């Protein structure tokens, strides 16, 4: 019997194997405790599928609501799952009536016969200013199209689009054991003549919103791990000070560091309790850590050249940074106390290190002629090129799953816009077509 999915146990492991097989051609041996899983893996592979096939009919709208909303939200979910690269999605299918098993079976039967592995039914209800979706995930490889996952999700109706993202993230969770990254934001710098303001948008480019409006230069936005605040450098007071603001709350902007010289390049520690940053208050740019509770600054680097652009390992135990101590700009790693400095890159002009939330890769920008994105393991092995033009490709930021990256490129018409890709450099695609330029992306953690 085909057992594609079993409730309660993360099937993610299986899909992970499928994906690994697809991306790297390498198969791990499944741990003995999960050896049952191999059936499913072999089953999927036997079909020749690199991705799981899922059919997503328009969401069913209860109580006489506008069917158009169910249709548009189902398409948001469909695009999210396509973007995940884990699924091959069939959508734009009429909605399935609620509470009608026969209709459901009839609706999914042809897709099952055509090779669909899963079917997603969404039941949308609007109650006053609240919107609720009940998502029901079915195994189309089982004879009865067994229900393998169901969940109710609720948000204010004004945020209904987020519900569609949350449904997608839940589907990814069911299959991979880790939620998707659709319910996230991307903060960025929007450049217009005379100013650089911070903006943010949904991860898919929808709903762009201004975050600052001070007609000054604002750069280097980074999200806090709780997704409530952004740290950034601004000239709003004339000099480049480091600030923190709360884009979802009506709270004043805070000054995090306002020393003489530069106050730049913030990076929140994984626990959110500290910010690594660059200060030149002691004579030249050095990396410090600001403890957000005590307000104390701790200096980590001591070198006469430039040290900047810190990025934390996901454990918080190490920090990668840029230093010119070896001549040129190179990526170095030190422990979070500033000791045990080791050099990672050997050739080129290397900046913008960003440590993967999974810990296994540091992506960075290397100038060898043009600027392109590269990856390297924290131990210095596995150096690999992720982009090779066109144009310059710079400033990567990781999605919270460590599988996707957002970056800036001037490949189209010379103006910088944001693009996304998978962490191996594949599936590069445009994200923004903003007026002026869009740069300096920071992909948020998952929203609460």
């Amino acid at each position: 019997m085909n057992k594609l999915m079993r409730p309660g146990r993360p099937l993610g492991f299986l899909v992970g194997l499928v994906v690994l097989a697809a991306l790297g051609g390498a198969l791990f041996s499944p741990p003995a405790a999960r050896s049952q899983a191999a059936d499913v893996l072999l089953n999927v592979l036997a079909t020749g599928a690199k991705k799981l096939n899922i059919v997503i009919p328009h969401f069913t709208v209860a109580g006489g609501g506008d069917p158009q909303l169910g249709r548009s939200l189902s398409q948001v979910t469909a695009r999210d799952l396509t973007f995940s690269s884990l699924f091959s999605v069939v959508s734009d299918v009429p909605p399935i009536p609620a509470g009608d098993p026969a209709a459901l079976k009839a609706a999914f039967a042809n897709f099952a016969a055509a090779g669909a592995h899963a079917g997603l039914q969404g039941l949308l209800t609007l109650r006053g200013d609240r919107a609720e979706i009940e998502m029901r995930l079915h195994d189309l490889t089982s004879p009865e199209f067994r229900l393998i996952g169901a969940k109710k999700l609720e948000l204010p109706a004004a945020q209904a689009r987020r519900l569609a993202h949350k449904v997608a993230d839940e589907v990814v969770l069911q299959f991979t054991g880790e939620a998707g990254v659709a319910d996230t934001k991307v903060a960025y710098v929007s450049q217009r003549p005379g100013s650089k303001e911070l903006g943010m948008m949904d991860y898919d480019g929808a709903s762009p919103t201004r975050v600052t409006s001070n007609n000054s230069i604002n750069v280097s936005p980074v999200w806090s791990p709780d997704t409530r605040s952004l740290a950034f450098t601004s000239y709003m007071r004339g000099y480049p000070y480091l600030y923190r603001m709360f884009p979802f709350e009506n709270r004043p902007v805070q000054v995090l560091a306002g020393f003489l010289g530069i106050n730049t390049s913030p990076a929140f520690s994984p626990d959110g309790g500290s910010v690594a940053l660059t200060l030149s208050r002691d004579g030249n740019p050095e990396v410090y850590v600001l403890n957000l509770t005590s307000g104390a600054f701790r200096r980590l680097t001591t070198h006469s050249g430039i040290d900047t652009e810190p990025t934390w390992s996901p454990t918080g135990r190490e920090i990668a940074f840029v230093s010119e101590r070896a001549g040129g700009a190179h990526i170095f790693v030190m422990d979070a106390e500033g000791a045990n400095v080791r050099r990672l890159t050997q050739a080129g002009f290397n900046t913008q290190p960003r440590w993967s939330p999974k810990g296994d890769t540091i992506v960075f920008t290397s100038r060898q002629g043009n600027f392109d994105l590269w990856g390297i393991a924290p131990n210095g092995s596995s150096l690999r090129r992720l982009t090779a033009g066109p144009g310059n490709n710079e400033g990567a930021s990781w999605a919270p799953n460590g599988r996707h990256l957002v970056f800036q490129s001037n490949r189209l018409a010379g103006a910088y816009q944001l693009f996304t890709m998978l962490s191996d450099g594949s599936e590069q695609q445009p994200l923004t077509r903003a007026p002026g330029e869009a740069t300096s992306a920071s992909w948020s953690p998952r929203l609460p």
Partner: protein
Amino acid sequence: MVHRRGSALLVVPVLVLSLFLVGCPKRPATTAASAPPPTGSPAPSTAAPSTTPTPGPGMTPSPAAPGTATPTTPPRPSEFRETDNLKDVFFDFDKYDIRASDAKVLDTNATWLKTNNDLVLIEGHCDERGTNEYNLALGERRAKATMNYLVGQGVQANRITIISYGKERPVCTEHSEACWTKNRRAHFLVKAR
């Protein structure tokens, strides 16, 4: 039914921010703030944040380093004005050392500065290539190197303020070496005391 989730929910830590209570000896906070409890989901992004910054932990300018009598609260950059008496100097790509030909320019600048008592703002600039963050550091080094040269020529350090604009304020916006050469510069502004 609700399935057991295979991965961690995003737990929002309750951040009690004592940012304003400590670490700010000279300018004590006027507002003690603690974060409101997490709301569970962010509001739609309509809340207009105030643009008036409040003091945070690092608001107090650092004491001047020994030997450099830098003013602790420099005037705003907008208070300085352009002058024809001080000429720009230029830098090689990713470099901040003063070139021999530019040293002569700085000698002339120093001579003029010693004829008056104006305050000086030295802006460090970079070309458009590379990251905002690295270029902010590089511009800082260029301004600092320029300042150090002038101080070596007898200009009082406490007259000089430096600011890095990194790559943020180019004088030339074409994407060419001819343009980049013009942008890798230290620029001077003055302000009467």
